[in-house]
């Protein structure tokens, strides 16, 4: 009679390796976790005694804080390490850093790293659970999950929805995690932006490619608007932020021409007046702050599911009968 969620395995590296059932299990588990953050005492003891290291090789405020809240609300002990203060800046390799942490007896590592593949590299080399908090342009699975949870909250479903990701898809780990996850849950996915940042090759991932943002708005139920990194302009992918805003920026005027009310997401932090105008970001169709709230719940769900992720012991326990 025990209902066991499909195990996630040891790590969460991305949404590409997960099954539809595993993704749904995380989203469903996140639902009750939302409520914990509304309690007077925002804390449950489920990860008591676990030590989690938040290892951030790239600057991040929002994702790191969101993970910290999730860890604290599950009663885990946490240590934050950022690249600037770690011995990485003294030339230590990633594996050496991780092994040193292991030697201090930790249980989980939440890692953000600038290189695609870094999370898997680490996960294969240490016994602790590894959660990818963003690796290069590869994946940012918890962001993908919280985006999907937010879409499901507001649209009631994901299957059959048309979701368009707008902006610098080429360099975006958020875009990839969204694409992999949404397709598995049966959504139709499109990407839109300057062809320099939205190569047609993305079609091979099973998504539609729009060049004109007007076409994307005509098509979509949901827009997930990516941040345009200033570096992209410096590297010449777009001539100027102003031109980007004029051609691809999401403005109220553009949304008003849509045949339906479009749900607007943005993973943050926003460049107001570049990829998104303020009247859209703060408008009635925006669920950007709901995404932030859901981020904590999704990360709690992932931590919870990974911490219990020892199915072989679960089997043994089931034979032992009721707890």
């Amino acid at each position: 009679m025990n209902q066991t969620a499909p195990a996630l395995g040891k790590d969460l590296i991305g949404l590409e390796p997960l099954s539809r059932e595993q993704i749904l299990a995380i989203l469903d588990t996140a639902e009750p976790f939302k409520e914990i953050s509304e309690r007077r005492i925002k804390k449950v003891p489920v990860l008591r005694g676990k030590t989690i290291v938040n290892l951030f090789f790239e600057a991040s405020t929002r994702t790191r804080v969101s993970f910290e809240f999730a860890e604290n609300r599950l009663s885990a002990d946490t240590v934050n390490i950022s690249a600037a203060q770690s011995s990485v800046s003294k030339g230590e390799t990633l594996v050496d850093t991780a092994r040193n942490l292991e030697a201090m007896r930790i249980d989980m590592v939440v890692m953000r790293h600038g290189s695609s593949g870094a999370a898997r590299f680490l996960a294969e080399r240490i016994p602790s659970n590894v959660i990818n908090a963003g690796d290069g342009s590869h994946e940012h699975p918890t962001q993908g999950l919280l985006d999907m949870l937010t879409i499901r909250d507001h649209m009631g479903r994901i299957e059959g929805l048309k979701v368009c990701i707008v902006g610098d898809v080429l360099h975006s780990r958020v875009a990839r995690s969204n694409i992999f996850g949404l397709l598995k849950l049966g959504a139709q996915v499109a990407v839109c932006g300057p062809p320099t940042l939205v190569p047609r090759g993305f079609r091979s991932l099973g998504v539609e490619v729009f060049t004109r943002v007007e076409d994307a708005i005509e098509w979509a139920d949901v827009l997930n608007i990516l941040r345009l990194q200033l570096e992209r302009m410096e590297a010449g992918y777009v001539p100027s932020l102003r031109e980007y805003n004029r051609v691809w920026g999401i403005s109220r005027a553009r949304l008003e021409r849509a045949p339906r009310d479009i749900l607007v997401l943005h993973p943050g932090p926003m460049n107001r007046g570049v990829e998104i105008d303020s009247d859209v970001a703060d408008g009635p169709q925006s669920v950007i702050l709901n995404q932030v709230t859901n981020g904590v719940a999704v990360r709690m769900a992932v931590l919870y599911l990974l911490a219990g992720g020892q199915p072989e012991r679960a089997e043994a326990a089931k034979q032992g009968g009721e707890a």
Partner: protein
Amino acid sequence: MSARILFRGGRVVDPSQKLDGVHDVLVVDGKVAQVGKDMAVPEDARVLECAGLVVTPGLIDVHVHLREPGGEHKETIASGARAAAAGGFTAVCAMPNTEPPIDDPAAVGFVAAEGRRAGAARVYPVGCISAGRKGERLALVGEMVEAGAVAITDDGSPVMNSGLMRLALLYAQAFDIPVADHPEDLGLSGKGHMNAGLVATRLGLPGKPNAAEDIHIVRDLLLA
């Protein structure tokens, strides 16, 4: 009362209509109404005798240098537009290698406005691929198209940076405009003054090998 003009007895050439022969052309209110042999002269039509002349649709020169701004001692937009019209060209595409180069929407707007003011051949502005024609970063392509640019090129200089050329070709897709390149590999053509070959050898002038052009064209084809 409509204005009718009969162009009589000229050699009419229009490949789009598979025409090349002596015909009469009747124009009513500025539009070709009829093409035929030995047509009756309609009442009140003006007749232009065209025997020995060539009659064609308005020609378009996609590559002209009007030199303005910066080179007005050679040519201006107005003089170029009038010269074009006199030579049978009803539209020209103005290259952006002026001084300063046509690399932003204001400059494109200037060329378009001056062209209209000349009231001769239509002037279609062409914008730069790179800001300042320096071959480093994309110019404001989207805004130039909005201001009336019909194509982009760094004409006069090749885009030597293949990465930039690739970005330009991709970016232009968004606006559905052609990208033109000045095909010359500067590493090969170097300080050459003329085509490399027998004559250059005899004259003792530094030459540019044919490969300088071919390699650049092949590169662009591979990128496109």
